[in-house]
Every structure is written in C-alpha cells, then in structure tokens.
C-alpha cells in the first residue's frame, strides 16, 4: 500500500502531508525532515527511487519527482510497483496542473482543501482508486459544484435541498 504522500518545498516546508498508516503527530516533523534530507542530498538526473527503511520501516521505498520548487513524494511498501508509483506521481502532478492551470507553489499553498480533495479522489486508505487524471478532474469539479449548490441552499430545509439536487 501507499504509506504516505508528501509535497515538500525546496525550502524544506511541507505543503501537503497525508499518512495512510498511523504516524504519531509529534513524529510528523521528523519524518518530513528525514525525507527532505534524503531528497536534498540527491543530484538531478539520478533515479527517482530511494529506500527509506530507516524512516518508514522495513521494505519501504519512496519515489519522488522534483518539479520547480517542489518535491512530490510517494512512500510505498512491497505491495506496490516502483514504476507504477512513478506513473502515479505523474498523474497527481498532471491533475494539479489541470485543476490550477499551470500549477505553481502558491496554488498549492493556498488550496489546502482542494489538494486533499484531489488526493482523496486518487487514493483511499493507501489504495489507488483512480488513475485517470481526467476522471479525477471530473469528480473534483462535481464536488465543487455540489458544494456551491449546498452553500446556497444550506438555509433551506433539507428536504427541499434534496429535491433540488435530484
């Protein structure tokens, strides 16, 4: 399964953290620091895989992409295929790019909730549930539409709002 998804800036600031195995909150900062140290030590144009047994336990690896000022990191165990995970990082980045139209770090900084929405459409409980960025986009747009609808109708009793949304 996928153990964690992280987006970390090149300034070592976390931009998105999601753990699919329970990690005590007080450990999160150490995990981010450990991962960042590994990443920053790697030169460009080397392989995208790093073994992270020391940080996430035996058999774990991470795959990362370094794009502009961000590292996109997926941590996974022996139940995932390395190259498939690399593809998944690509899907995630593509989806972000589509959602934000040329995504940059600021989009990610200011769209905490939307980022989680996108990620949740892709991965649930460490399992990949959707791999098509188009499909993910559609779902995210629909959620946005529903939310808008819901916030305009939130003052109207529930029965009526349900009738509207039908």
């Amino acid at each position, binding site marked *: 399964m996928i153990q964690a998804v992280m987006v970390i800036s090149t300034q070592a600031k976390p931009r998105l953290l999601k753990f699919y195995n329970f990690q005590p909150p007080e450990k999160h900062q150490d995990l981010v620091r450990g991962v960042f140290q590994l990443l920053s030590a790697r030169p460009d144009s080397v392989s995208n895989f790093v073994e992270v047994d020391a940080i996430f336990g035996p058999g774990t690896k991470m795959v990362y992409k370094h794009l502009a*000022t961000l590292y996109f990191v997926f941590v996974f165990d022996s139940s995932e295929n390395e190259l498939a995970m690399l593809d998944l990082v690509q899907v995630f980045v593509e989806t972000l790019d589509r959602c934000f139209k040329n995504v940059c770090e600021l989009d990610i900084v200011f769209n905490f909730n939307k980022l989680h929405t996108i990620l949740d459409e892709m991965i*649930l409980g460490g399992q990949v549930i959707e791999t098509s960025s188009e499909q993910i986009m559609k779902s995210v747009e629909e959620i946005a539409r529903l939310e808008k609808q819901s916030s305009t109708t939130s003052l109207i009793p529930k029965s009526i709002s349900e009738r509207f949304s039908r």
Partner: protein
Amino acid sequence: MASAPPAPAPAHTAGPSLVDTLFQRSLDDLVKSLRSDPSAAGESAAVARALSEIHREIRAPDAATKAVALQKLTYLSSLHFAPVASHPLAFPAIELLASPSLPHKRLAYLAASLSLHPASLSLLPLATHQLHKDLSPSASAAAAHRHVSALALQLLGSPAAAAAPDLAVHLAHDLVPHLSRGSPRAIAAAARVIAGAPSAAVPVLFKPLAACLASPDPRASTAAAAAFCDLAAPPADAAPFLPLAPDLYTLLTTSRSNWALIKVLKLFARLAPLESRLAARIVDPVCQLLTRSAAMSLTFECIRTVLTALPAHDAAVRLAIGKAKEFLAAADDPNLRYLGLLALGMLGPAYATAVNDCRDVIAQSLGDADSNIRREALHLMMGMVDENNIMDIASMLVSHAAKSDPEFANDILGVVLAACGRNVYELVADFDWYALLLTDMARSLHCAQGDEIGRQLVDVGLRVQDARSELVRAARTLLIDPALLGNHFLCPVLSAAAWISGEYAELTKDPVELVEALLQPRTSLLPMSVRAVYVHAVFKVLTFCLSVYVEKLGDSNKEVDVVFDGLAIDQTASGESKVTLGSAEEQDIRASAVRKDPFSHESMLYMINLIETTVGPLVECNEVEVQERAHNLIGFVHLVRDIQELNQKKVADDDKQSRVKELVKTMRTVFCQELGPVSVTAQMKVASPDGLDLNENLVELADVVSEDDTTPSTSIFFYPRSRDSVETRDEPAVSIGSSSLSEHRKRHGIFYLPTGNTEDEQSDYPHVNDTLPSCSNATVYGDNSKTIEPVFAGKKSKSTKSRPKVVKLDGEDFLSSMMATANALKEDPLSGALRGVLLGRDAKASSSQKALDVNSEAIPNLMGTNESSSQQIEYLGSHPTSSSRTSMRQNHDKEKGTNPPESDAKQSRKHRSSGRSGHRQGKHKHRERSSTQPDIVPQAPVIQDFLL
C-alpha cells in the same frame, strides 16, 4: 510549472484588533499572515496567535464560524505541526460531521481523517451513528449523497479509524451494499477495515470483497486485486488467500488493466511458494505478458514474479534475465538501470553465471552518479563473490574505493571486510594476499573501518599460522609510516599492527627498525590505549632480540663480558652526558652499524638506549596502562644492567652468564605461549545442567566463595609456556582445595570445568587460548577447537599454494549460519510455523536425551564404558546437551580418580569427533528445515480443481 512568485503582501499583520474579532480570518488570511514573516520565530509567533484565536472561535455556537476555525486548525496541525492535543479538535470535527451543509461536512471529515488518532478515539464512537447514516442508502440516490458516502468511506479507510475496532464492528455491514455495487472506494475501505479488525470484519466483508474480484467492472476487479494484495503482504500469512487463485488466474489471463495485472502478479508471487502446482500454472501467462507488454511497470513486475516465485522454470528465468539486461542497457534512464540491477539481485545462486555475464556493466555502475545504482551494483558484486574470484573482485573494489566519495568508499570497505571475514574467512585462500589487502584498505583515503580491519588483522594472526610472516611485513609498512599516526580512524589498525609485530617478533626481518618505528616521536599523537600496546610491543621485541643475542653468545663466555662491559660503558656515558648519546653524528654511525646485524652488540645497545630515552618519560604518564607498561619495560632494561654491575664486583663468569641467560629466557617464556582465538559463545557453552536453579539463593556459599578468591586466578596474562601448562593450570585449585574447596567442588561440581586434559596432545597448534583476558572467568578449551580443511579441494589445483589452516572454533560457523537462515526465513510467512515445528522437535530430542541419560546412569554396566553412551547422547542432542556431557565427564573423572594417559587421549579425540558431529548435526538441521517446507504445503487449503 512556474516557480513561486514572491509572497503577496500580508493583508493585516497587526495584533488582535476589533476587525479581527468582528470578522473572522479565513484560512487564506491565516496562510498570508504565516507567510508574512518567513523566519522561524515569526512563524511560530503567528501560529501561536492563530491557535489562541481558533481556540476562541471553535466554541462559537455558529456552525460557519466553527467550520472555519476547524479548517484553520486542521491546516496548522497538518502542515505546521501545531500541537493539537491541547486543542479539542476531535470534538468539533465530530460535531460538524452531522452538519447539513456539504462544505462543513467535508471540512469535518477532512479534519477527522487527518487528525484523529488513538488518543482521541474515545470520541470516535460518537461519530459511528453519523457514519452509519451517511453510508446507508438513502431514498435519494443523489449525487450529493454519493459524495457524502464517499466521504464516510474515506474516514473509514483512514488510519485513525483502522485503529478503532469498534467502528469496524458496527459499520462492516454498511459497507456490504457498497461492495456489491463494486465501488473501488468501498473496496479500498473494506481492505483497511479488515486489516484493522480482522476477527470482526472478515466474516462480513471477505465474501463480498472476493466477489468483486470476479466483477465485470474492471475498476472493481482492479481495486479488489489491490485490496487482496495488500492484505496478503508479508507480515500477514498469504495462505488464506489460496482459494482466490482461480479468480486471480482469470484476471491474469483476461484483464487489460496494468494496475490489476501488477497486483495479481504480486499476489501470485506470494501464493506460489505455498502451492507447488500454482507455479506451473501461471508460468505461461506470465511469460506471455513478459514478451507482450509495452508497459515497463508490468514488465518489471513480471521479471520480479519470475525471479522470486518461479525459479524452477528455466525458460521463464532466461526470458526474465534477458529483459532485465534490457533494463540495464537503458543508458538514458537511471530508473530502469536501477531496477535492472535490482532484478539481477533477485537471482538465486543457480544463475550466478547470468550475473557474471553482466559483470562489466555492474562494475561500471559502481562509478554511477546515482547512489542507488552504486549500492545495488556493490550488492551484486558481492553476490558474485566465490573463492575463485574473491581476489579479483575484492582488489578491484578496494581500488575503486579510493576513487569514490567517502560514504560509498566506506560502504565498499565494509562489505569487502564482511565478505572476506564471513564464516571465519571461508572464501580467503591466500592469506598473504589478504594481509596486503587489509593494509591497502587501511591506507585507503576515506577509510573509517579501522575497528574491523584491526580486529581482522589480529584475528587472522591468531587463526592462521602461515599468514603471520606476511602479516608482520604488512604491519611493518603500517608502523613505519609516520603519516598514518595522525589519522584517528586508523588507531585500531595501528594498535593491531603493533600487537602483531610484538607478538610475532621472531618473524620480523629488522627488529631495530621496528623498535624505532614503535618509538618514533609522532606516536605521541596516539591515544593512550594504543600507546600502551606500542610500549608492550617494544618490550616483546626487545625480549626476543636479547634472547637471540644471548643464544648467539652461548658458545663463548668471554664475549658476554665484552658485551656487558660495553653496556656499562654506555650506561655511564648516557648517565654522564646526554650530549654524547644525543649527538646525531654518533647515532648515525651507530644506526648504520646496527643495520648490518640486528642482533649484534651495537644493536642491543642502540635499542636499549633508545628505549630508555623515549620510554623513560612515560613512566610518569597519567594513564595507568601506559605507565605500567613503561615501568615493566624500563624495569627489564634496568635488570639487564644490574647484572652488569655484578660483573664489576668480579663475580664469577659462570654465575653472571647464567644470570643473564636465566633472565632473558624467563622473559622470553613469558611471551612465548601461543595465543589463540576464543569462541564468543565460550561462556554459553558452559550450559546450566538439569536441576540447576540459577536463581537459587547462594548466601550459604558466601564463606566458600570468599575462600575461593584466594586461589590464584587462572587468567594471568603472563603465563609461562610449558608443555604441561594445562596440568599446572589446575594445580592450584587441587592443591589448595584441602577441605572446604574440595567439598565445594564435590557439592557444586557442575560449576567447575572439567579437570581432564582436554588439549589435544599431538596438535601443538592450534591452541584455543584460555588465558586471553576476554574470557577470564570462562575457560572453555581444547575440545571445541578444530581446523577446517579447504572445502574446495577440487578447485585447489588452480591456485599455486594450498590454503593454510584456519583455526575455527566449533559453534562460530554454526551460529552464524543459523542466524543467516533465520534472517532469510523471516520473509517467509511460514517461518513462524516452521520454527514452532522445529522447536518442538528440539524439545523432543532433548527430552529423549534426558531419558537416555537416566538409562546410562542406571545401567552403566550394560555399556562397555561410559564413553559409548555419552557419545550416543551427543549425537542425539544439539548444543545445550554439552552440559550433561560435562557433568558426565566429571562423574567419570571422579570415579576413576586419575585418568590413564591413553584414555585421556582417546577422550579428547572423541571430544573432537563429537564436536564435529554436533556441527554436522547443525547442518543437517538446516536441510531438515528446508525440506519441511514441501511437507507443510498439503495442509494449506486445497485449491479448486478448476485450476489444476
């Protein structure tokens, strides 16, 4: 992606103002304020301020205010590591779960899934009802509801919920309708629920989940394959998933989704070892995928499956190796090269030639910019090592280490040391080469492996007699290099080199040079513990030189006079004026004379003077170790000179000469005894016999123990060498044991070591030395030492010289190989069961052995001697039985009183053979272990006939 533009100007950075209290700050405002001051202090201040603000807002009765506060708190706890435990995050989150407003609900679900953790789980049951409601099919199958149930599934799949088994029990049934619809979300959530609470969730969820495997919807079957793959992951047992094989097989042959195929292949790789018929069944479809697939991920998964799970299918393995080589050849993609190396690393020893074919590529990869690739290449290199190519590979790697960055260089040195030292230097045939390699490694630029190199230098010296002259030569090159003295990583190496050259001083070509090297000025840079070794080494070398010198002079008494007259003159000279001694000119002349013959009169004088001037100051050293040894050395030098003073008093020549000889010989014997390796498990082998309670109160023994302390310790370091050293060792105990000690011995014989002469008579070497300080209280000797003969006698013809004897203690190799197999078996889910079975067998063996033990004691007359019975016992039991062996021998000794010498010899021979048989038994057990695996298989759930 564009790089981030500079942060926008903060909206308002002033402290809490009226505006702040009237108009709540949104998350965006919070982010802006956090970015306004990027310094750590500024950020933490902003976080603290925001937290106090949120603390106030979150208690607001208004849901909108509460929701925004919750959102900000979630953000802070997730990305700024704000300590949320002090804030009641869980409660408002659960409160808002029930909100009719979809955005609020979403925020609440996000907060709950991100920040709920076991500490706050007591609150989770409060959410159970809401989750139940959100999951259950409502009358309105609207998009909104689908979205809500998706959120609920998300929370169920989050790690917080997985830790709350109650939730799984209550909500498992609600998942079933979602599963039957084939929702990938529900499938993924079900997998987490099952993993979190197997006993409650499996009866409800397993069947619907298994049905999804056969679903016509590819998204459902893919998700189900992934779910099962996750559930069967290593720490768990894959056996319960065997009945799914038919559905998985269908997926394997029909699915077009690479994701699904990867997961199915992973599952089969875990199932194939459990069911022997599976491998034959899947090998064809896997090979088809391997040849057909264009996706690298799937190709790699096929390679992995074939190499790990189908090693018996030669054609498939060849195909996979071919593909792996294609990966290796991908010049522009480091990912593929890395995975290619990874794949080769999975090959078993049967395909070592295939790895060997790629040796050039692998060797090239050692210099890759990518540390992953370098590490894998190193791993593969070491995997290739055997006794034929170890010299090439190790030399190549060590020369490569000189060119690498420090970290990788040390990785290389570490693995080379580990590989060569494995199983008591099993792979090393030429120890002269190895001694040189060790020194090369020590001199390597970034070497930080001094501890291990030093340890191996000494260890080789102790174990391999034939390597000692080369070791001494190697030690010399290390000692005479003043540049090495400043490198603190090398201190253990230099310490080992000094010890070697002192211990084996008789092999040194030029002792004078050695003494000079050991006393060179830069030795002051060494830590005190190493200096102590240096001083002691000088002592040993000097003793050796004097003994040779005295022997040379043995023929003519007159010369002795001359010598010691010379000494006297020199002493007065050095005493009167240091200038004479210190004058460089004179020293040069002396040194040149000394070079010609290291055992000449001049050499002795030169050495003694050198020692006095350089070691003399150390007598006042703060460090006791150095001080003591310096005292020893200086004391010895003075003794030699005192005899000379006797000469001046006109004592008879004979007397004088005999005194000199006596002194030098005595000192020589002090250092003569061979030191041997001691098994790390020596103490463990003195196992407690049956009926001994180690926790028994020993207060009553207090008087006996105090008397015990007066007996000379058996671990005196300076022990004169003699043929019958073993007997003398026991003497004190026997002679002193007049009353209480012998009584004590009688009562607590089990604590004593066997008194018999266990040293093998004919083998002067190897000695397993019991006088090493490291085993001062556990002296296990003789019986467990043996010499391994070269195991590869057939290939030996290749090398010009035969492999020297390597002293090996019984148990060392056995233990290490046991550990290796234990590690290897850890991957195997069956290991636990297997180990249980084996332990049961061990227990049985020892109990039957106990029975035999009783028998043999009850009817000793039926057996010819005790020996045959004890031998029988030793064959039955493994290591722990050695205790009964000892006690039996004790009885035996007591009965007979003194052992006739020939029975002694027989016994010791028998011991050797039994030791070896124990070893063989250990190996046999390995075979048993691996052979039990197929026996287990039929017990696994029988697979449906459809597949077979």
